[in-house]
């Protein structure tokens, strides 16, 4: 029993209630949000360390006997995901407080940003820590609900358009998830992950395959893997920069986490690994080709996001310890780097007045600092050594080559090509937006983009730059500490495939 497990869920909920009451007092609201998220980071980091040194941490909420009631579980995988996610959430929140003073406050007279943001954080934590499928569903619904509000905040025309697609897609996936849950319960009589891991192998293989496929479909929609990814580049780019950053960093990764968790724990013999590899391959290639065609920075980044989900799916599909370890490391890296890039896009919007490469030029002349802020994460995303992107990709490629089947080789080739094309898109964005002569808003050509928030450039507030810098620094920590981290993720992968999780959750005697 470890009561610390409730903190990452309860603390943000409490914070949400407090910030809602503090609506008219923005300063106090900001203070509470930041304090709450610092607390969550501390709790998450402690859990990650405990999961590593002591073993899998579990809590049966309300002290019901094991096997009844709600369980929260933190193994190494949940620990590292939770820590990285809450760190990124904190950085994004700090960034948004910088933006707050200038922009957000004018946009949203009722200050619902902070409460909603904290509710979303609680949902993400709940999904990571849930020990059963139903609470994972509830966690997903909490974070999705907050994301509906954040995405459609201030109700402008583009946001309503983006929001309606997003909401409808997620309603459908929620219904599918519930159907899958009913099927699981009918087949096994439980939704607890540890009990499912024991009972599922005993039921009819046909039913097993159906359950596995349904879960994969549901989480595939959330993780935005091709062909279920069309909603993402359509809905993310219209939201304000901090919102897009946290969506891109976290929400799709929760889907990836759920795929990782269910596919490894519940279906250890994994009949769908080939399907996962094909899906990973298609996601990488289709996503990056979409990015190549874009000129608006946020849309471009949304497509690279879809494309790089393919790498994680590839790691899961390889189904070896090395593949899973690399996938976990890559997820941690990608949460950080994708959020950073969206924050930089927000800074571009401020400095250049637009995020479309058709409209901005010479940003590196206007602000060399912004150029540096963009180029480091951009190169990291493309997988240029020695950054963490390179280390993650190297791990995945090594794992792919070790598997050595023709399909694994095909995915390896696709992964290398995608990396190259990512470099191409980043270099293109750099050429068009950062080089050349600066232009003023009046010189900007009309484009077909719907984002019409064009204005003269404004200086960057220190808080926004500082939090972006902090995230870049964190991605460098991921690079420098890659050795120990890789050890950690390797053991996380071993825990996933071994029976540690089931033993820790269901053990009658307290270890």
């Amino acid at each position, binding site marked *: 029993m470890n009561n610390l497990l409730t903190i990452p869920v309860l603390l943000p909920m409490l914070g949400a209630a407090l910030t809602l009451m503090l609506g008219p007092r923005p300063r106090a609201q900001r203070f509470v949000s930041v304090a709450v998220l610092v607390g969550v980071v501390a709790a998450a980091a402690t859990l990650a360390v405990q999961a590593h040194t002591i073993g899998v941490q579990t809590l049966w909420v309300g002290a019901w006997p094991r096997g009844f009631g709600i369980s929260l579980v933190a193994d190494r995988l949940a620990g590292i995901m939770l820590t990285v996610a809450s760190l990124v959430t904190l950085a994004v929140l700090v960034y948004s407080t910088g933006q707050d003073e200038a922009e957000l406050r004018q946009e949203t007279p009722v200050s619902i940003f902070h409460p909603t943001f904290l509710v979303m954080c609680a949902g993400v934590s709940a999904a990571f820590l849930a020990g059963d499928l139903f609470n994972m569903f509830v966690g997903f619904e909490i974070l999705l609900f907050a994301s509906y509000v954040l995405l459609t905040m201030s*109700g402008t025309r583009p946001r309503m358009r983006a929001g309606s697609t997003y909401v409808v897609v997620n309603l459908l996936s929620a219904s599918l998830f519930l159907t899958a849950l009913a099927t699981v319960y009918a087949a096994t009589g439980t939704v607890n992950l540890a009990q499912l891991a024991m009972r599922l192998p005993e039921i009819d293989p046909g039913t097993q395959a159906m359950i596995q496929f349904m879960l994969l479909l549901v989480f595939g929609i959330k993780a935005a893997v091709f062909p279920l990814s069309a909603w993402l580049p*359509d809905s993310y780019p219209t939201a304000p920069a901090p919102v897009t950053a946290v969506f891109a960093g976290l929400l799709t990764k929760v889907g990836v986490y759920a795929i990782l968790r269910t596919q490894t724990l519940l279906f250890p013999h994994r009949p769908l690994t080939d399907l996962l590899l094909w899906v990973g391959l298609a996601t990488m290639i289709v996503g990056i080709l979409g990015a190549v065609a874009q000129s608006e920075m946020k849309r471009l980044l949304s497509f690279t996001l879809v494309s790089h989900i393919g790498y994680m799916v590839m790691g899961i599909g390889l189904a070896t310890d090395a593949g899973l370890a690399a996938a976990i490391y890559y997820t941690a890296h990608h949460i950080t780097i994708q959020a950073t890039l969206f924050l930089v896009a927000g800074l571009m919007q401020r400095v250049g007045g637009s995020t479309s490469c058709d409209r901005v030029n010479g940003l590196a002349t206007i602000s060399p600092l912004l150029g540096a802020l963009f180029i480091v994460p951009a190169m990291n995303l493309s997988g240029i050594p020695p950054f963490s992107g390179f280390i993650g990709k190297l791990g995945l490629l090594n794992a792919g080559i070790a598997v050595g089947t023709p399909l694994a080789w095909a995915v390896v080739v696709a992964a290398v090509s995608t990396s190259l094309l990512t470099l191409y898109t980043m270099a293109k964005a750099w050429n068009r937006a950062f080089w050349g002569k600066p232009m003023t808003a009046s010189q900007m050509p009309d484009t077909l983009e719907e984002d019409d928030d064009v204005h003269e450039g404004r200086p960057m507030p220190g808080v926004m730059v500082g939090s972006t810098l902090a995230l870049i620094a964190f991605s460098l920590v991921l690079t420098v500490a890659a050795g120990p981290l890789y050890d950690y993720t390797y053991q996380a992968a071993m825990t996933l495939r071994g029976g540690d999780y089931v033993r820790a959750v269901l053990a009658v005697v307290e270890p």
Partner: protein
Amino acid sequence: MTSSLALAVTAGVLIAAGVYLLTERSLTRILMGVLVMSNGVNLLFLVAMGRAGRPAIIGSTDPEAMSDPLPQAMVLTAIVITMAVSAFVVTMAYRSFQLNGNDEVSDDVEDARIRALAERDDVSDSYEDIKFSDTGEDVVSE
């Protein structure tokens, strides 16, 4: 485990009707679809529960004769979530109506862009209209 065929068939019909409504453009109809479908899915939980029994209250009922209370708890949660979703979608439909005069889910950005390009009769950068450099006349027209 025995389960009711009537429930399963009703769930199937409700879900089919819901999916049909989801394919509509109007947010209000989509909402109807979601409501009908979620009712169907909730019935699936009752199917998963097995045979209906007596109230699950310890002391008043023999444990053997009880219904399985867990799926009912899950359905309750699902109903609450659906209610919140409906409220949100209704708000969104109303806001769309305020902005656009209708509540339709609009096209993909990319689709809209391609249509706009076609209307402006633009060509891509890689397309070259071959002309003689000195006269400026089209090769094709000569």
